[in-house]
């Protein structure tokens, strides 16, 4: 996982949820942040915009914490780079 992707994912969560950035860590849990399913779709939308990726519904459903979110985004970003080569 690149540090850049990690930072941008956590920044996006903070921004869309209007949560202080320092409260969000890669090893934290969504439950601690009080996020519901609507918050989740908002974050997914913002991540798609931020990274210009499309997050499939099946992938999205598996995400349980920030680490998995960063990993999922990283995979999609890598795949996009691979395609453009």
């Amino acid at each position, binding site marked *: 996982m690149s540090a850049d992707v990690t930072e941008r994912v956590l920044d996006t969560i903070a921004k869309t949820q*209007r949560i202080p950035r320092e409260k969000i860590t890669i090893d934290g849990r969504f439950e601690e942040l009080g996020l519901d399913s609507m918050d989740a*779709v*908002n974050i997914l939308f913002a991540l*798609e915009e931020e990274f210009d990726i499309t997050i499939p519904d099946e992938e999205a459903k598996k995400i349980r914490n920030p680490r998995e979110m960063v990993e999922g985004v990283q995979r999609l970003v890598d795949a996009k780079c691979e395609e453009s080569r």
Partner: protein
Amino acid sequence: MRRVAVTGLGVICATGKNRCEFAASLRAGRCGIGPITQADASGLRFGNGAEVSEYDACQYFEPKQIDVIDRFAQFAAIAAREAVADACIRWTDELREQCAVVTGACIGGQTTEDQGYWDVYKLGKTRVHPMTIPRTMSNAGASFISMDLGIFGPSWTVSTACSSSAHAIGQAFRMVRSGETDLALAGGSEAPFSFGCLKAWEAMRVVSPDTCRPFSKDRTGMILGEGGAMLVLEPLERAIARGAKVYAEITGFGMSADAHHITQPSVEGPVRAMRKALQDAGIEAEAADYINAHGTGTDVNDVTETAAIRAVFGEHASRLLVSSTKSMHGHTLGAAGAIEAAATICAIHGGFVPPTVNYRAPDERCDLDVVPNESRGAAIRCALSNSFAFGGLNAVLAFCHR
């Protein structure tokens, strides 16, 4: 059947961000029409509208709430909060469970929808904002009010174009009158200033390139407006018992369909709606002193409405005071019935008749006393508020002084 009192008012529109500002503007004849700022009107055949100027949603809502509720639903919520605070309701669990919330909306969160279409069709984006659906739904106002104020009773939204919120108030009135509930919040809201919506209105060729001059010979059409208004309705007896301030009594509601034409109004449909409202209120036509007219400022509405008023009131029509407050707050579509009901209530309560502003020349086809340009002191016994919708669905509310 129980008598029903209006004990709370909340209003936000081009002529006032609360009920006091709104009432003061009605009395002063202050027009809220000006250049449209929310959309680029340079490519339109008209450039003026009645917007809520210097509106800052952050003054009313948390940022996360703003993400999920469109401007039109924000107006409903702002008006509902004001109305409930004004009525000094002492909430109990029982009251929360039976309180009804009925809102009217014509186009709902059209601005949000427009943005989504812009993103996918124009900008070629592959996705729209995930809150597009909940922001767009017409019932968003009623839903947010119930959540915001903790109201668990029957709540729904009526959509009958420009009669929407008059139908909403009428239904809530009947629920309170019949004993189905001891408390109802009713009204409506609208925020139609998206480019796509303005284009659609332009194509109808009914919007004035200038301003709204109802009943004036040189009128050139309607002016779109935005805002919201909510009323608190409760049994009169209960209101008196708890020492609540009573603005007016809501006494009648009449509905009809023209069954005639999708946009052209008929005379007969409005006649039947006004007659039914009077009959429902149990008052003679001669007891009415004021009509807050539908008065859009289009050639055809103002002529047919005049003919309808003459048909219902006969000779008394010449003694009636008739004004269109749309000349000040614009045509707010789904909010019109509620904002104009609020204007009618302010008039009854304040002892004055709001004027038809921007009026310049009499039209022999609109030969009523339309209270041109300046408000008039008047003790109003009973008043009607007319709402006639595209599609020919008419709703008339009757209010009386007490």
